[in-house]
Every structure is written in C-alpha cells, then in structure tokens.
C-alpha cells in the first residue's frame, strides 16, 4: 500500500458512494463523473496511459454529459420525491453485502493476490494500434458495428413518436 493508491482509492470510493446516496440527481451525476476521473487516475497510475486518457474522454466527456442530459430531459433536476430508496432496499443491501463478502473472501484467499508485480513495461500507443489492427481486428470491427447499431437504435428509441 502506498500513498497515491490510497488517495486514488479514497477519491473513487467517496465519489461512488456519494453518487449512489445523494438525493439530487445532478449531484449524483457530477459525483459519478468524479469517480470516473478517479478510475482514470488509477489506470494512469498502473501505467496504462492510453486507457486512462480514453476513460476520461469517453466517461467524463461523453457518458457523464449524456447522463446529465437525461436527468434534465426527465426533469430530474427538480427536488426529488420523499423517499429515494425503493421499497425493497433491505433485500438489495443484503444481496450487496453478501456479494462483497464473497468477493473479498475470494480476493484475500486467492493465490493471484499474493503475486508480486511484474517488471514495468512501456506500452506505446503504436503497440496498441498495431495490436488493434492485426490481432484484434475482428473485435474492433464488431465493436464498430455495435456502436453504429447502438447509435441508430438510441436515436430511434429517443425520437418522439409521430402522432397519427
């Protein structure tokens, strides 16, 4: 454990918790943007420069904006209703605790978590690009198709229906 990791982890956890508990939806979306930024810092700290910057570009620059727009389009910016938690909140919390306990137990007891870090590798953008164009070209194309389909689908779903 070292200091930068502790700071990053604290930021992520605090922001994520805030996003899930704050009453105001816009505050929630801003908090989740902070959490995304913290994760980007974690990636950068783990020497994954390209992924970290992509995380900022996609999540803070696009997804957070999208969420904020959705909040405003559904009038979520107004003061929320009395109870923000659903009727079955107790069971949800129970499931969550169980899941976290299982995961933590697995992490603490697995051989992988006792592994020492491997030597630092310099991953250049060129390497990533080469890999994307050779070894991972099929997934890349599929992702491109998926994104196009999702974009068209999203536009069609969100489009106002013509009144006949």
């Amino acid at each position, binding site marked *: *454990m*070292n200091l930068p990791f502790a700071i990053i982890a604290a930021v992520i*956890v605090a922001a*994520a*918790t805030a*996003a*899930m508990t704050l009453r105001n*939806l816009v505050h929630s*979306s801003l908090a*989740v943007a902070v*959490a995304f930024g913290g*994760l980007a810092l*974690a*990636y950068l700290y783990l020497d*994954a420069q*390209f992924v970290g910057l*992509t995380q900022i570009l*996609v*999540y803070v620059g696009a*997804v957070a904006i*999208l*969420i904020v727009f*959705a909040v405003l389009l*559904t009038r*979520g910016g107004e003061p929320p*209703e009395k*109870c*923000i938690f659903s009727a*079955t*909140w107790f069971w*949800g919390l129970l*499931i*969550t*605790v169980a899941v*976290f306990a299982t*995961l*933590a137990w697995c*992490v603490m007891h697995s051989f*992988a*978590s006792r*592994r*020492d*870090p*491997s030597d630092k590798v310099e*991953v250049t953008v060129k*390497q*990533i690009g080469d*890999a994307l164009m050779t070894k*991972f070209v099929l*997934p*890349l194309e599929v*992702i491109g198709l*998926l*994104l196009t389909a*999702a*974009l068209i689908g*999203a536009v069609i*779903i*969100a489009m*106002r229906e013509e009144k006949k």
Partner: protein
Amino acid sequence: MTPLAGYLLLSAFLFAIGLAGALTRRNAIIVLIGIELMLNAANLNFIAFWRYGPNPEELTGIMFVIFSIAVAAAEAAVGLALIIAIYRHYKTTNMDEINSLKG
C-alpha cells in the same frame, strides 16, 4: 497485503457500491449509473491483472478494457434513450411505478 489485492478489493468495493445503488435506488438513471460503476469496477480488475500479470507485453487486459469502454458507451446511450422513452410514456423515472407492460 500486496498491491494487487488492494486493487482487487477496491474493485470489489466499487462493484458493491454500484450493485447497492442499482438494487436500492428508485430512480432509473441512478440504476444506470450503478451499472456503469459495476462495469468500471470490472475494467479496473482487467487493468490491475494486466499490470501484475506474468506477461504484460501481451496487451490483452488493455484491449479488453478498450472494448469494454466502447460497449459501455453504447450501453449508456441506449439505456438513457430507453429511460427518456419510458419517461415520455409514464411521466416518471421511478422504477417502482413502472410496473405494467401495457401502455
């Protein structure tokens, strides 16, 4: 505790926060945010395993995260479009009130 375990625990905790939000909050947008957090927790796992794995020059972890981010972006776009469509129909984003299949 090794650093890898730290990252994995952080990831697990983030996943739990996202899950808690998705299961307990009423608002559909918050549920979507929770799901995004869970996806991000998985991404953190990939990067951590890639960095602490035996052969990081393979780039598999990074590639997975890049594709995962792309999928998450698509998911967010479609999910929010759905929420807006539902809001237009029911005039609410409260999950407890959206309980009938028939319009």
